[in-house]
């Protein structure tokens, strides 16, 4: 590892990146007035942007300083943190590409290389990025290691296999058996064993040694930030809700991709403080919150703003979502004293790896806890584990709770499957039925 690379990385981390970010921050703040349907924007937004831009920006100076791992959103990243890997979350990057409305372009690159257009668009965007080297975040460092878990989907395993094959990079896979009923002893043993078996490989790739005390420290930080994140989401039970779920889609990034690092913990402390303050002062995310909604499935990244405005103008606010909750839901299973088994419980039972009876129960609880009046489900072409079963979930919820609901067919990041006319009509009909239900 070269000394100059190390120095450069350190300099950029401490001085260069923050200076650059503050400049960008200034430019941004001036240019965007708040549309009238919204309440005052969160002050933490600027801090969030700074952290994320800095993370992507710094990644340029990482090669030669730290080993780089590409990681899936559901993988037990704590293990990597112990070895000081610099982690990149391709799903996060694909969402960013989607939010910049460049999804179709990147998907097109992958399709040009004969990847089928029926594959998850996160995967296609990332493969498009890998094949072209293009990225709206500048340039991502090449991985030294790929780390994935099928606890969110089997898709990521295929996707990472494709990268592993193309770039000839080792892949570590954490096989998390789907919870059809409840986790068996065998499931736990299997997962715990795999985690421990990864240590020698991680030591070899990183050149660092494993210390149990390091893992404990990382797990502790991870647990703390997940809990803080969970509390922030819980604060949205307040009326009016201090933020919208569309804000939360953005504020989710550190818990996904910086989990286990001090920066994530610090960030959520700041955000929690601001949220609590808003709650105590009765400041709402939208100016006049009349109806409270639940969102199901991943965000539609290229339409976040459109949807936020569409609903805010109708005095409707999304106050909870199965998606944002996913990084807080199972954290109480984590037990620092029993790391391996408890990681197996925490990571093995996340929402997409759990059966639909569990999901139904969870959604019912959320609807109750957050005083929800209506439900919007995004059925996404990309994601089978999130979407297969949604039609029946909707039926079970709307009939038993008499809750107005709507399903919109779209995609997380490939804007080519979005049909605005059709979706707008559906959403408007949904809003009408919501207003009717509450009037009558």
């Amino acid at each position, binding site marked *: 590892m070269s000394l100059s690379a190390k120095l450069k990385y350190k300099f950029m981390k401490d001085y260069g990146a923050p200076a650059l970010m503050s400049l960008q921050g200034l430019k941004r703040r001036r240019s965007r007035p708040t549309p009238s349907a919204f309440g005052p924007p969160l002050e933490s937004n600027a801090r969030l942007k700074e952290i994320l831009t800095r993370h992507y920006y710094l990644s340029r100076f990482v090669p030669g300083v730290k080993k780089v791992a590409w990681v899936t959103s559901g993988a037990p990243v704590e293990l990597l943190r112990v070895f000081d890997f610099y982690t990149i979350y391709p799903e996060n990057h694909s969402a960013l590409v989607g939010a910049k409305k460049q999804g179709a372009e990147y998907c097109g690159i992958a399709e040009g290389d004969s*990847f089928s257009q029926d594959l998850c668009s996160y995967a296609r965007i990332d493969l498009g990025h890998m094949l072209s080297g293009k990225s709206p975040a500048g340039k991502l460092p090449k991985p030294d290691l790929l780390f994935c878990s099928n606890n969110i989907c089997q898709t990521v395993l295929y996707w990472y*296999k494709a990268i592993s094959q193309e770039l000839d990079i080792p892949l570590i896979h954490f096989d998390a058996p*789907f919870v*059809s009923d409840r986790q068996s002893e065998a499931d736990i043993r299997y997962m715990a064993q795999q985690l421990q078996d990864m240590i020698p490989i991680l030591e070899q790739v990183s050149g660092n040694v494993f210390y149990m005390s390091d893992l404990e420290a990382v797990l502790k930080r991870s647990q703390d930030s997940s809990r803080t994140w969970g509390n922030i989401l819980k604060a949205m039970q307040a009326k009016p809700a201090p933020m919208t779920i569309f804000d939360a889609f953005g504020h989710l990034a550190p818990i996904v991709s910086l989990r286990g690092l001090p920066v994530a913990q610090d960030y959520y402390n700041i955000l929690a403080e601001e949220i609590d303050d808003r709650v105590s002062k009765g400041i709402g995310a939208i100016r006049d919150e009349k109806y409270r909604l639940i969102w199901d499935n991943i965000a539609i990244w290229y339409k976040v703003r459109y949807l936020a405005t569409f609903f805010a103008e109708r005095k409707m606010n999304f106050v909870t979502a199965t998606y944002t909750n996913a990084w807080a839901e199972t954290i109480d299973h984590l037990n620092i004293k029993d790391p391996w088994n408890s990681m197996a419980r925490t990571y093995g039972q996340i929402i997409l790896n759990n059966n639909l009876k569990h999901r139904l129960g969870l959604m019912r609880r959320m609807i109750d806890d957050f005083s929800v009046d209506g439900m919007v489900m995004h059925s996404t072409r990309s994601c089978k584990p999130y979407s*297969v079963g949604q039609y029946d979930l909707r039926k079970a919820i709307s009939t038993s709770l008499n809750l107005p609901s709507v399903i919109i067919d779209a995609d997380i990041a490939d804007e080519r499957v979005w049909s605005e006319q059709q979706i707008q009509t559906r959403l408007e009909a949904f809003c009408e039925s919501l207003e009717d239900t509450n009037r009558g």
Partner: protein
Amino acid sequence: MYPFDAIVYLQRDDHYKRSDLEQRAQIDAMSINDTKDKVLKIPDRSDYLRDQRRSGQEIMGVLPALYPRELLWAFNILPAEIWDPPGEILLANVHLQASICPIVKRGLEFILKSPEIINSGYLFPHTCDSLQNLGTQVKDLIGVPVPVYTFYNPKGEFNKASKRYYSEILFNLQKTLEKSHGLLSQNQLKAACELGHKIDIRRQMLHAALMEDRFDLSNREYFQLIRAAEYMQGQDYLDLLNHVEINEQIGVAPRARLLVTGILPPGDDILNFLDESRVRIVSEDLLSGSRRIPIVEMDQPDDPMEYLVERFFLLPPCSTKAGGLDKRLQYLKKLIAKSRCHGVLFNTVKFCEPELFDQHFLIKSMKVMGLPVLNLETELQPGLSGQEKTRIEAFLEMLDEGVPV
């Protein structure tokens, strides 16, 4: 017994040793010569299952793809596999989005009709994201009048923990079935494994014979024969396989030799068209076919549970298990070399992510090898569209070395 380390695919490449096969074919020919029918009678799926049901047989509907059939046999359960039940998809569209693969849709359509022949429940092996969710959707949201069972199949490169885990979940499945079907008899399990072992060996021989053109069966008949395993009783199926004649001599050279890979064989109309065009499918790498037959000839089962564990880890590389891409390519290269095929037909089920991902790498690698590849995407609808016909014919023209000069 195979040491765990030997489960690196294809290190044992002697499994289709020719002399062995010939010897075996002769022995078989002698022993069954007098009972042999000239025409192969493959019972119709629905008729067969209805007869089984009428005779009081317990039947379990099993969704694709990998499951311990021997264990079900030992409980006197006949697995009736549900891959692509024919007919229109109507009911399932109420429960599933448009972009879900037709196997999942047809499977659900079948289940929603509450077929009477299925009286023992449904088994959902863990195959892919879509089937995983369909299992819980049927069990937890839609509801059916029979029990729903699930069975996880370990994924990815197998590691030290995989084998132990597989044996534990096999045992868990046994315990679950014992609750509804009474205690498992070890003798029955052993007998079931022995029967399965015989079938496997016969299947391996037939596949080898296919590669060597030593059959008179048409493409269509061959796949009917292979697919009869999806619904027949083990013993009946073994009898059927034993009736297939393996010729001493090599048959006439076809216009083209193809290897087919994918989930299912092409539909009957496509197979007929290939037969008419004098194209011979000389090897198959199908999930419904050879991917469920061990890659080597296994020893006689001694401890049946151990045997079943070994067997799982000796199955060929497959997209649904999501092992290394390179291993899969190496395996296919062997099949390509052994079968001396001129081209590869990818019979792709629309929206099937496992296959679509693997395919990208496989097709590229084959093109680099100079091997022509035809990719046919299907929604499992019957018939042969004009476009499919044009694709196949153009591919054959290409194999004919372009257009005659």
